[in-house]
């Protein structure tokens, strides 16, 4: 059984969605319970990865490979390294929380909602496991279908616009990657990522491919200037949709850079690292300012996601400057590690922030900051969690938000102090927009009579928020296990950066 652990992880939630659907709208509660059981079972399975996985080895492990399309040499190839394991754990963890979070909130067709969530979860795990580019692409694209439905059916008033924009934007990005992959396949005769990584490519080829990959993953991350779908999608998505989108789906963009851009087109990645670093800094600083003026809580957190994901791309590409420019492997590793920790941490923090906003929205049905004020007076427990996550979002030491950002800033200082200077801006702007929101929502006097009628969080919400809170704190105070898990893989990636293809 354990030889097929990865397959099981991918297909359990997808197949599990069928009984959830069959439970039908007539018995919403049984649909909910089945969905929860499937999500828990998936989480438990993903925990089983840990004893099986040897963290000291940076290579891909638990490999599975079956011929998928014999005549094209396409394989159904799965394997994980430390980074994938961390992201899979994040996915399955969030998977449970979104099901619990949607329990009573989703009243129309809950079985369809839960089923879409489970399918989405399975596909996201598939993305993190795939070692074959075509298989990766299939998971990468198939993910859009359940998300499209989630936003479109259970979303807010402008959901149709938002979900169309989301789908078309992402599809736009990835189709060029597909053409690039076809080109690579014709050259290498295989879609296997390891083969593609070893394929010699001229600088011209690499440049074209680099931009094909960049557009696909930049849309997904998202980077400035192709980030505009994200605020719309976040604002209109149901709470669970926002949580999954921010916590896991955005990470797939960063993950794609690691699996495609870095190993396959290293020289072009080096040559255009300035571009990605520039866009990342733009995201950190400029988008930070934009977040400051938002009136809508979800939009604010969405923009803050763009800014935080800027750190991920910054950390990944700063490593190029450090390895290729100064041959400073240690600093490069620090940057890369920071990027990875930031991915996981942002998964928890943004998921938590969106859950909090969901809690408020369920009570007031508005996300406008001006409609709130003085919430702490009626919802003290909620306020506790909200402030904690706000602190993590602004990168306070002791929370997970601090670790990754600090590592990236440290690494970029060694590449160029100016880059570090602009990156460190986030500590100020991030704190500014987050705390300003907290001030307007939680503190002060109650001005809106509806606020006075709000009830504090119930047991279900306490469970979701404390799970997130535990993750945020553990990762902030004791990041060592996570860093250890990814360490060997990050080292290997950084060593690979030094390989020239021309």
């Amino acid at each position, binding site marked *: 059984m354990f030889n097929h652990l990865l397959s099981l992880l991918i297909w359990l939630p997808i197949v599990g969605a069928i009984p959830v659907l069959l439970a039908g709208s007539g018995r919403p509660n049984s649909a909910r319970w089945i969905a929860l059981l499937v999500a828990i079972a998936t989480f438990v399975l993903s925990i089983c990865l840990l004893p099986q996985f040897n963290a000291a080895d940076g290579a891909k492990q638990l490999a599975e490979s079956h011929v998928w399309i014999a005549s*094209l040499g396409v394989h159904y190839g799965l394997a994980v390294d430390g980074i994938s394991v961390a992201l899979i754990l994040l996915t399955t963890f969030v998977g449970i929380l979104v099901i619990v979070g949607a329990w009573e909130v989703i009243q129309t067709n809950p079985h369809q909602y839960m089923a879409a969530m489970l399918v989405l979860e399975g596909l996201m795990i598939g993305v993190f496991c795939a070692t074959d580019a075509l298989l990766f692409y299939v998971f990468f694209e198939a993910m859009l279908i359940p998300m499209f439905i989630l936003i*479109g059916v259970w979303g807010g008033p402008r959901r*149709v616009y938002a979900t169309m924009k989301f789908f*078309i934007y992402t*599809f736009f990005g990835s189709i060029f990657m597909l053409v690039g992959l076809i080109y690579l396949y*014709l050259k290498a005769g295989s879609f296997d990522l390891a083969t593609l990584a070893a394929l010699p490519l001229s600088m011209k080829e690499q440049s074209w491919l680099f931009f094909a990959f960049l557009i696909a993953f930049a849309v997904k991350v998202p980077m400035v200037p192709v980030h505009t779908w994200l605020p719309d999608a976040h604002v209109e998505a149901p709470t669970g949709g926002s949580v999954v989108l921010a916590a896991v789906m955005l990470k797939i963009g960063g993950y794609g850079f690691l699996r495609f851009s870095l190993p396959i087109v290293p020289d072009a990645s080096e040559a255009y690292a300035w571009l990605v670093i520039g866009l990342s800094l733009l995201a950190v600083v400029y988008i930070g300012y934009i977040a400051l003026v938002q009136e809508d809580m979800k939009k604010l957190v969405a923009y803050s996601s763009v800014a935080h994901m800027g750190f991920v791309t910054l950390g990944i590409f700063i490593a190029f400057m450090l390895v290729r420019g100064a041959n400073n492997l240690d600093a490069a590793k620090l940057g890369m590690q920071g990027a990875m920790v930031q991915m996981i941490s942002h998964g928890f923090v943004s998921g938590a922030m969106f859950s909090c906003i969901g809690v408020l929205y369920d009570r007031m049905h508005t996300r406008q900051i001006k409609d709130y004020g003085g919430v702490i007076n009626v919802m003290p427990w909620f306020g506790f969690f909200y402030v904690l996550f706000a602190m993590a979002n602004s990168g306070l030491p002791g929370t997970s938000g601090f670790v990754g950002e600090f590592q990236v800033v440290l690494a970029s200082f060694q590449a160029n102090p100016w880059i570090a200077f602009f990156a460190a801006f986030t500590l100020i702007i991030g704190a500014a927009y987050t705390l300003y929101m907290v001030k307007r929502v939680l503190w002060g006097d109650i001005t809106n009579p509806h606020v006075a009628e709000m009830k504090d969080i119930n047991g279900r919400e306490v469970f979701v928020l404390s799970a997130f809170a535990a993750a945020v704190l553990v990762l902030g105070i004791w990041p060592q296990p996570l860093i250890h898990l990814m360490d060997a893989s990050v080292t290997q990636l950084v060593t690979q950066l030094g390989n020239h293809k021309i």
Partner: protein
Amino acid sequence: MPNLNDILILLPELYLVVAACLLLLLDAFMKAEQRPLLHWLSIAVLLVGVYLVVEGQPSQAVTAFNGMFVRDGVAEILKVFALVSTALVFVYAKPYLIDRKLFLGEFYTLTIFAVIGIMVLVSAGNLITVYLGLELLTLSSYALVALNRDSRLSSEAAIKYFVLGALASGMLLYGMSMVYGATGTLSLAQLHGAALQTTMPHLLVFGLIFMIVGIGFKLGAAPFHMWIPDVYQGSPTAVTIFIGSAPKLAAFGMAYRLLDSGLGELSQHWQLMLACLAVLSLAIGNLVAIVQTNLKRLLAYSTISHMGYLLLGLVNAGPEGYAAALFYAISYALMGTAAFGIILALARAGFECEEIDDLKGLNQRSPWAAFLMMLVMFSLAGVPPLFGFFAKLLVLQAAVHAGFMWLAIVGAVFAIIGLYYYLRVVKVMYFDKPVEGTEIRLQSDVSVRLVLSLNVLALLVLGLSWGPLFGWCQRVFVG
């Protein structure tokens, strides 16, 4: 005199001719209430035809009647899928025809004759056979389009189809006569060798151009696509579904026979012509589809764009490209029958279900129908893991491999534009509220529900495991 061997090679076609005539006779002596029997018999006739095609398939390509008729792997696979998709058409069409008092024997016999035309066409070894098969197919189709004699829209569509079709046939014949003039032969096999030795290369290329016009018309590739939207919309949906499926396989077969078996040596000339047709089809099909409000018209323009993708495969002009194009044609036939099948299954007496808005809130009324339609739409749009994605992948790959990188990028760009209108259909079904006072649900006919579900789920299953089918497509073009 034809010998027995020739007859055996032609057995599936001969069998179908006899069976169609018998069905016609049976219909004449049958009471109206017994007609369901005719329905099931027709389906059985087609399935037995599949059996004869597969069972009698020789291991090597063989010819009959002095090379007029070829029976090879390409012909086999095209015939199998033409027969199967027509059987699907019969299953889906029955309730629709009954509701509209069109449940007549003519529908079945005409369709079977059209299928015989397809089978002759894809087996052609001679320009004359190509023409014979084509005319049998198109003449039967004209009559089918006009099946609903009382409908003005239907008659208009039939006239339009007939006039344009006759024009295209004329062009094709004219082209054939020029090719004959330049090479002195009508046999495709001899043409292949004679094409380069001709003393009149210009005449030959002119002939080629006219023949491409004929092919473009049959495929429905822009700028020869004008008939498609009107015929799709005007015909009874039960006929549209036929015209949108099996004849596309025939058009691929015809293009393959004429361009590769016949004029393969001129590929450097026709590659670029087909590339132009492909770009125009992609552009016109996808852009005009965006503004459609009628579902049948939308699918008509979507067909045009799909033929553009099919041409991307043909542009490759090698076994790999033909395999990709054949795979695309099969995928389109399955998707087309599924899409129109759902429309047929949702229609009922007095309600055509042909406006996009008719699908409003379908998910709340009939979640299963909405789910099936969603799968079909995503497959048509080319979103993995559905069948349509892999078909697109293969034709794009064929184009890139032939050095038409720009064409593949154009194909990719139009895939994004096309995505929008498919998403709009999903949006209407899932995100909109149903209109009060309307009712929309699947036909209660069990066979329709079952076959339709299987047809759509096949798109998912073939998407997850398309290797064997593609392997088959590849094998027939090797050697």
